[in-house]
């Protein structure tokens, strides 16, 4: 599988500060690749370096086999970029914003009109297409920004904080659109510090902090790597010898929290939950069972610490 984006030891300094430090990663076709990090981690700087808006101090980048630092115009023809702050013309309507983009980006202007109609329908903006963008909600503005980027049919889309300031319903709509576009062949590189977004949307996540790559994996593997699931059991009769009761399940050390309340670690708890219930329900009168799984929040805090980033 040929990489869509290849990043080798990219470094960028701002005076004494190293904003991006020896960053290397690859993005595959039709992937939704997430840059996850706290505020000031270097996510936006990384995107700006990748699309050639910032100069590299060290390293190299290839997008679809082209170096954006050497041949930015060729790269810009095949990428789309949606910045963190939605940069549409607020006093123009959606149609005029899209025509503005078309004049700057679209090679074949004869196909623009039907494409605009299609995108406005797709993004559920058709009914409001003639209203000034100033009157749109945050989610509508983000959808318009995405529609604008899709207008010139780029292969790779860089989406900086896709749902920043968007309500829950709006977030889900934008995620659906991103996933739909991925199915149509687009590759997305998004930056986020929204754990739910990173977890639900991204195929792989690169956690960066202070400009450095901390870890890179799928959300599932990142969570799994943090530890096993924790099972908590509440029974009316205390389980005297839990090692015997749960023999063959390969559980970790059992801790008794209070009489009738214990917890232990186990891999893939969902596979064992029925068996656990069967073994304790009759003899110990099971009252409650709870399974806790490490979240991406836990992963994030584990890797980036709990210190405030302002």
């Amino acid at each position, binding site marked *: 599988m040929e990489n869509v984006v290849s990043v080798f030891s990219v470094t960028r300094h701002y005076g004494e500060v190293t904003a991006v430090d020896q960053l290397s990663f690859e993005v595959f076709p039709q992937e939704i690749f997430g840059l996850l990090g706290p505020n000031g981690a270097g996510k936006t700087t990384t995107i700006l370096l990748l699309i050639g*808006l*910032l100069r590299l101090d060290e390293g190299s980048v290839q997008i679809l086999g082209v170096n954006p630092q050497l041949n*930015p115009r*060729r790269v810009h023809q095949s990428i789309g970029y949606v910045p963190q702050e939605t*940069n549409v*013309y607020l*006093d123009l309507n959606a149609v005029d914003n899209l*025509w503005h983009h078309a*004049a*700057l980006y679209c090679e074949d202007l004869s196909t623009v009109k039907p494409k605009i109609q299609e995108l406005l329908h797709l993004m559920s903006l058709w009914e409001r297409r003639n209203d000034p963008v100033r009157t749109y909600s945050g989610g509508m503005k983000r959808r318009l920004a995405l529609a604008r980027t899709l207008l010139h049919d780029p292969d790779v889309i860089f989406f900086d904080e896709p749902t920043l300031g968007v309500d829950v319903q709006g977030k889900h709509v934008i995620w659906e659109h991103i996933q739909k576009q991925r199915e149509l062949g687009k590759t997305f590189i998004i930056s986020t510090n929204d754990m739910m977004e990173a977890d639900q949307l991204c195929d792989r996540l690169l956690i960066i902090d202070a400009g450095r790559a901390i870890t890179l994996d799928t959300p599932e593997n990142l969570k799994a790597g943090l530890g096993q699931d924790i099972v908590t059991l509440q029974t009316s009769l205390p389980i005297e010898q839990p090692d015997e009761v749960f023999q063959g399940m390969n559980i970790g050390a059992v801790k008794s929290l209070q009489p009738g309340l214990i917890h232990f670690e186990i891999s893939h708890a969902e596979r064992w939950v029925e068996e656990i219930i069967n073994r304790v329900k009759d003899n110990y009168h099971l009252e409650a069972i709870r399974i806790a799984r490490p979240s991406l929040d836990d992963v994030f805090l584990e890797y980036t610490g709990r210190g405030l980033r302002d």
Partner: protein
Amino acid sequence: MKRFALLLRNEFKLFRTAIPVHLIGIFQPALMFSLIALVLVTPTFEVQMEPPVTALEEQLFFAMKQVGSPIGQPYIDPVVVETSNDQEVQGGQIIRFERDAGRETAVQQFGLIDSNMVKNFRNRLTAAALLIWNEELGGDAITIEQEPWLPRDISYNVYFGMAMLPLAAMLASSLIGAFLTAQEFEFNTIIEYRLSPTSRYLLIGARLFRLSLTGLFSGLVLMVVIGVMTGTWPSSLGGIGLILLAVALIGSCIGTLAGLILQKTLPAFLVGLTFSFFTWIMGSAFGLSSGFSGLYEAVSRFMPNTYAVELLFPIYYRVNTGSSLQAIILLITVGGVLFLVTNITYQSRVLARS
């Protein structure tokens, strides 16, 4: 061509992002001209006077009526008013007559008027007195003859308005250009331009052409206002259009440069405003620069408005004032150089990686 037309259409649609600035830029010169022409520029002064009683006083009254431009425009309109001696003259002036032992004196009493108006009254009344004096002297009179250069008398309003035409083109193009360009940075829409694969010459060209057309429109609005108010119309609409377009191109470049360099709307707007008014005042705004001091004339040679006025003069007055060819070459050269400078600045401020 299709892309350029679309870019141009988009540029005009950006009108909606800065409506007040467009209104100020386009209509301010016409409004300013209307107010100044109506209120300030009046060649014929009303001079109030007590009813003349003696023969000499009658003589002064008729001499005042005769004072005027060589071509016949009156400078004084004597108005006889009945007043008591102790009545105050608050807003203007009045001529009263004093008769003392056979000596008659016309005393002009001023109210709240400035020294410039006092000078204007003095010039006009001196001219009236000279007429009486010359009649007395007969063959020994000091004869002053003024030969008009222009074939017909055109009011000062027309010159003033004509010299404002380049201001109109400059103001609209530079103000709007500065504001729209700086606004792209403030709203971050400049990113769209930074990543665009379209040639920068097309992008800049569309913006400058749109601004130049806006400047031209502002000039044409003023031209119509001048025509309606003074009854004077240019002999060549095409000529006016080309001159104003050249000035507007210069204004467009200055405004766009201010926006690109300052990247903030207010300072860029002020640069456009200051540049427009400076080049207007120093560029033959109140009379051909050759009629002013050497320093003014020297400075005015660096103002595009000076050359524009020299080119507009024959269109309004049917008389050449200088080398039209030189003025045309200068305007085109300055416009061309500024177009290149704007492109280079766009490259360094927008496209270059930081």
